[in-house]
């Protein structure tokens, strides 16, 4: 009996286990891996796109998807650079609201016009990338206010701001998802939208909320990313979509929708972050890294699909 319980527990935590295994492997192969600097580095790197993973997790749980997240992040970054002459605070607000606005557009078109979110966000992805190129005049733009970097370069107890913001967001949204009525409605709609509507849940409103949040988080990520070096360009966010979707799936959240958690999404991000770190430590070229990212997405979505198909013939 106990053996069963242990087996179940291990199965539930398999991602954490994989992270542990890779971590141990790296620790043995590199003196550098377990240093404080490197760990912080890993978290710093994953923080930006990690914020977006939170939103994508919500969307996938509710049964939607957003391909425009990379462009939105670039959009937020660009806005925060452009609005700096009006003050740092304004710049930050501009970037974040820009992201949220795109999210709102995605949400409205998908729900009110009853279109598949994957197709709509494909369109907005292209559209917003164009806007970003326009705003940055196809260059890398630099902000006017050097103090802007304080938002990303400040450290509290040697932990950089982005990591803190990321952690706070993780906690806030996990609480929202698991403990609030809205969060439970997200699960309900993802599980069975017809039944949810039947029993009075405002399906459209909740969906739009998830899109807006994803846009908002994209904006935040973009602002913080711009804050690293006070620059922004149209090349930001090019590989974000692949990273984010892979992270959500790796964490164990199924494309089928209806279940998951921010904690699971975090595991996925962390795993991906460690894999990236491993590739850097092992001095794997960035091109091979891109290949591996593509393969990983394909692999993980195939596994997810196989699981979904298995359930059909029970």
């Amino acid at each position: 009996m106990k053996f069963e319980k242990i087996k179940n527990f291990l199965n539930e935590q398999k991602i954490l286990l994989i992270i542990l295994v890779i971590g141990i492997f790296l620790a043995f192969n590199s003196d550098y891996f377990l240093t404080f600097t490197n760990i912080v580095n890993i978290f710093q790197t994953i923080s930006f796109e990690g914020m977006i993973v939170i939103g994508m997790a919500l969307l996938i749980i509710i049964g939607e998807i957003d391909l425009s997240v990379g462009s939105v992040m670039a959009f937020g970054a660009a806005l925060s650079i452009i609005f700096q002459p009006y003050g740092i605070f304004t710049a930050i607000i501009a970037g974040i609201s820009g992201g949220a606005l795109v999210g709102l557009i995605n949400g409205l078109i998908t729900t009110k016009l009853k279109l598949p979110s994957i197709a709509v966000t494909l369109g907005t992805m292209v559209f917003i990338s164009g806007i970003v190129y326009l705003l940055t005049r196809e260059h890398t733009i630099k902000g006017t206010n050097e103090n802007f970097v304080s938002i990303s370069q400040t450290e509290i107890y040697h932990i950089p701001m982005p990591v803190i913001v990321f952690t706070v967001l993780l906690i806030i949204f996990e609480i929202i998802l698991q403990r609030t009525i809205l969060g439970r409605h997200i699960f309900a709609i993802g599980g069975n939208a017809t039944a949810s509507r039947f029993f009075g849940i405002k399906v459209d409103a909740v969906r739009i909320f998830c899109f807006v949040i994803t846009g908002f988080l994209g904006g935040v990520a973009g602002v913080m990313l711009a804050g690293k070096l006070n620059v922004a360009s149209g090349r930001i966010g090019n590989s974000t979509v692949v990273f984010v979707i892979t992270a959500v799936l790796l964490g164990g959240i199924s494309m089928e929708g209806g279940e998951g958690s921010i904690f699971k999404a975090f595991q996925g991000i962390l795993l991906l972050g460690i894999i990236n770190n491993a590739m850097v430590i092992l001095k794997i070229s960035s091109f091979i890294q891109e290949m591996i990212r593509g393969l990983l997405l394909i692999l993980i979505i195939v596994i997810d699909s196989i699981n979904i198909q298995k359930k059909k013939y029970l």
Partner: protein
Amino acid sequence: MLLEIKNVVKTFPGTVALDGVDFNLKKGEIHAIVGENGAGKSTLMKIISGAYVKDSGTIIIDGREREIGSVEASRALGISMIYQELENIQKLSVAENIFLGKLPRARRSVFVNFRKLISETKKILKEFDINIDPRRRLSTLTTAEQQFIEIIKSVTTKNARIIIMDEPTSSLTEKEVEKLFLIIKELKKKRVSVIYISHRLDEVVGIADRVSVFRDGKNQGVIEKNEFDTNKIVSLMIGRELKSTGKNVYENKEVIFEIKKLSIRNKIFDFSMKLHKGEILGIAGLMGSGKDELVKSIVGLWPAQSKEIYFMGKRVFIKHPADAIKYGIIYLPEERKLQSLFLDMSVCHNISPLWLFNIEDKFFLNSKRETELASTYIKKLSIKTPSISTLAVDLSGGNQQKLIFSRMLTVKPKLMILNDPTRGIDVGSKEEIYNIIKALASSGVSILILSSEIPEIAAIANNVIVLSKGETRAKFLGDDVTTKNIVRAVTRA
């Protein structure tokens, strides 16, 4: 009297579903409705629950006349309907399913009061003597338990007064049925009325206070508890036999199709059958009997754990419908809009696929031959269509089905497996299709026909197999194929 239905009429293009139905329901009563498929039970329930709107007639609830224009309106009146295909959320807990849309708040905030959620759920489960942990995921429950939870969900609505159950016991074991009845009796104690729709007369007689028998869109009679008599009920259900112009006699005893052993996990257990040339064999069974999965697996559309099929004396291995078609075995799916028709394509293109890939089988298309083919069959089967290039979506249900029949006939099949061929079709077209089937049989084509409309099977089939819960429950040959016999066999729990 809680609910009174007077002279309600509902028609669909080509059919009169309800022909002036009367029905009433007392407070705290368990009232069963029995009747054949197509008798009007589901239609009336859909009207009461707000899914359909009646054409005419009156609905009186608590003495006031009401118009039930939507599902929300029906809910607001305290009416809930529990469908055979449960509308629940598998991945959520029992508690969250019961309180779907009405999760208890923590101190007027946005947070869920989980403690209250669990305790309230425990409370109500206890009232019905159901021993299930509220935190369990709904998908881990058996179908029966999920059904019970569904019932409880209906009861927790503020003014739950009427609960409609449509075939609640179709996938339940005897013990689970007993439990269901206890729950229903508890509902009665709470003065909640139950409308109980079922084919299973023995059960109905055991639980209901009154029974209404529907046939041909009318309520043929209400029987009180103390007057219950299965025979009486059955005869009210059946009325006249379908006007059949005599059955085919198939003399050829040649067995062309045989299943020696077919097993599908959880659905079919060790099935076997024989089919002769020119024979029409009907398979009857309720939902959950496994008949759908059975025929799907024959043509390779559903995985089977073991499958031994012989065609024309030789063992055949069918992994994909294309394999079956090569042998001359053609399958007609039950949902033509989703599974057979190419709605956005022309009538011509809907008739030709099988012919194109198996008979014509050329690299280049020949539109002249194709249109000739289509015209031939349009004439042969009297398909009413403005032109050969009309889109399939614009045809009536009966004509759409005839399109699919034409498609099958273009390749001169040897065995046709028809899954509910006259579903959702007007009476006139039904007759035409019966005649087509009979003509085919007399020309030597073997037919396997599935239907939940028993009079239909009785009128057309030479022999009938009755399936229940994955096993053969009864076999009727020749003269024993009567509606009465089949209904009896099917309704025995």
